[in-house]
């Protein structure tokens, strides 16, 4: 399997351990990623607040680059995935708009044809028949006994017509991966909710409350760790967990992992190799569970 990797900005910035663990997972699974070094930021749904055409043009340029590489595009961030799918929908559903977008791209030497490449989150790739088969073959250290709660990242689920999960209101894609890795999935209501990150600079209390409710729900459901496919959710749930804990009377302390970290752990990599020591919430408790 070979893909164009759209890293997104946060995996190269505040969550570099996501990039690290993605590459380790790919190495362990024998997946080849070609990093899209000239692709611009997806805009995170924020650039489009300023200028929707600008955001779509930048993303169509990204698609055109993947088309030129003749590779399907893989994201490692739920936000990037959701935003790119929105642009794909805007452009593909309106030929006149596509022409307008392509006229903006023309001078740069890119043209988006459409219908040539798939845009998928890494979790979706692992969830394909081929991905699941690879995982089954390559697991070296089953994560037996690890009660693992998925936190999907809302942008990959809604709007449902753009989601790659079969039932976005009650998805099972991440949990199926957990089971193959030997972990025990924990199902809880908040796993499809918003982590609050998009308003962390505008309404901090509400943002932390949203994250706190999700953490409490996961802990109350018996989770040893929460695993997310979105680095922004990771920042909200991990980097801000001390503030969230202060706000809540109820305990909600729980380690937060990136999905590729969980995968790579099962492939035999050590927590240090996956940058887990850089998390704000210590993940050392997981070692004890896995050693039992």
């Amino acid at each position, binding site marked *: 399997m070979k893909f164009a990797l759209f890293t997104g900005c946060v995996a190269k910035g505040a969550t570099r351990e996501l990039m690290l663990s993605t590459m380790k997972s790919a190495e362990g699974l024998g997946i080849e990623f070609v990093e899209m070094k000239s692709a611009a930021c997806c805009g995170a749904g924020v650039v489009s607040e300023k200028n929707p055409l600008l955001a779509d043009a930048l993303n169509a340029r990204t698609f055109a680059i993947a088309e030129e590489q003749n590779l399907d595009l893989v994201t490692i961030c739920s936000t990037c995935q959701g935003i790119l799918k929105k642009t794909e929908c805007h452009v593909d559903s309106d030929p006149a708009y596509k022409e307008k977008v392509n006229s903006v791209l023309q001078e740069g030497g890119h043209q988006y044809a459409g219908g040539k490449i798939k845009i998928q989150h890494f979790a979706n790739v692992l969830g394909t028949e081929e991905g699941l088969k690879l995982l089954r073959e390559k697991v070296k250290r089953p994560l037996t006994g690890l009660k693992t709660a998925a936190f999907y990242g809302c942008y990959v689920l809604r709007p449902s017509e753009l989601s790659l999960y079969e039932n976005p209101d009650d998805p099972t894609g991440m949990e199926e991966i957990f089971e193959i890795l030997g972990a025990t999935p924990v199902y809880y209501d908040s796993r499809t909710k918003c982590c609050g990150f998009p*308003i962390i600079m505008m309404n901090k209390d509400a943002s932390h409350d949203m994250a706190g409710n999700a953490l409490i729900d996961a802990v109350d459901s018996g989770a040893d760790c929460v695993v997310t496919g979105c680095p922004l959710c990771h920042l909200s749930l991990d980097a801000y967990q001390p503030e969230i804990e202060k706000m809540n009377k109820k305990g909600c302390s729980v380690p937060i992992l990136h999905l590729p970290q969980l995968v790579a752990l099962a492939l035999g990599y050590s927590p240090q190799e996956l940058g887990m020591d850089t998390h704000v919430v210590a993940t050392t408790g997981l070692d004890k569970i896995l050693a039992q």
Partner: protein
Amino acid sequence: MATFRIKRYNPEKQPESYYEEFQLDIKPGMTLLDCMNEIKWTLDGSFTYRMSCRSAICGSCAVKANGHSLLACQRQGAHLVKDDETIVLEPLGNMKPIKDLAVDFKPFWDKVDKVSPYLQPDKKAPKEERKQSPEQFRLIDDSSTCIMCGACYSDCNVLEVDDNFLGPAALAKAQRFVQDSRDGKTLERVKYLSKPGGIWDCTHCGECVERCPKPAQPFHRIKEIMTVALDQGVTNNNGARHALSFAKLVKSSGSLNENIIPVETVGFFNIKGLFDLLPVGLRMLFKGKNPPILHKSIDDVEDVKRIYMELDE
């Protein structure tokens, strides 16, 4: 035979809500509302909910089915039966139940009222009607389809934690007037909507778009108000500064500089705001999680800058 697990509540009899189960044979073609009527008419006459038109026009019969809001008259009962042969019915969220599935809509209507949901033209009325071109109408076409059912309000992730948020329905209604070519209060409207509790408190989670039974799709309307607010120069707030900083940073390097955006969002002279950033900043620095000080541009960033220039940004 399906089992309807219904959340019941009657404060005159007992203060706590409870679940009660009813068995019903869902005949082909029965909507969820038909099923609810059948339960009320044949099994328990005290079962309480709102309904009227049965045609997805009046917006009365919104309830939660299997954890998510919907219009009961718009969905086939059989499609909602889960693998365990049950349908769970609950009142809409983010509003207080009055009895069974009927909730108190007062906060919802109060918020709609707050956005001044009526035209405020600044010119004298012409002799004939105020005309709109099809293009002008298209801007408000989707939001004018809202039937005020409360499905979006019920499942809004922000309202679950913050009563002060105007919410998706009121904001979608606001867009219907912000972008109405006949309205004369656009600037005043976007100034009001840019305050705390307004457009910038939306998390973009898409829950309202998913639950909306009409093309109103509140989140998309909220984004449209944001663009108008920025165009009108209403930028003295964190949400607007965040959007402007984000777009500017992507222009300069092709990717987001996470060291700069928090500072530009709170504002360089906002001492308290900057001070609030310190704990998480230091925590991340201590863990080696801080974004690189020297921010690297993407390859061929010149093409990104060219696209910005071409679009006058």
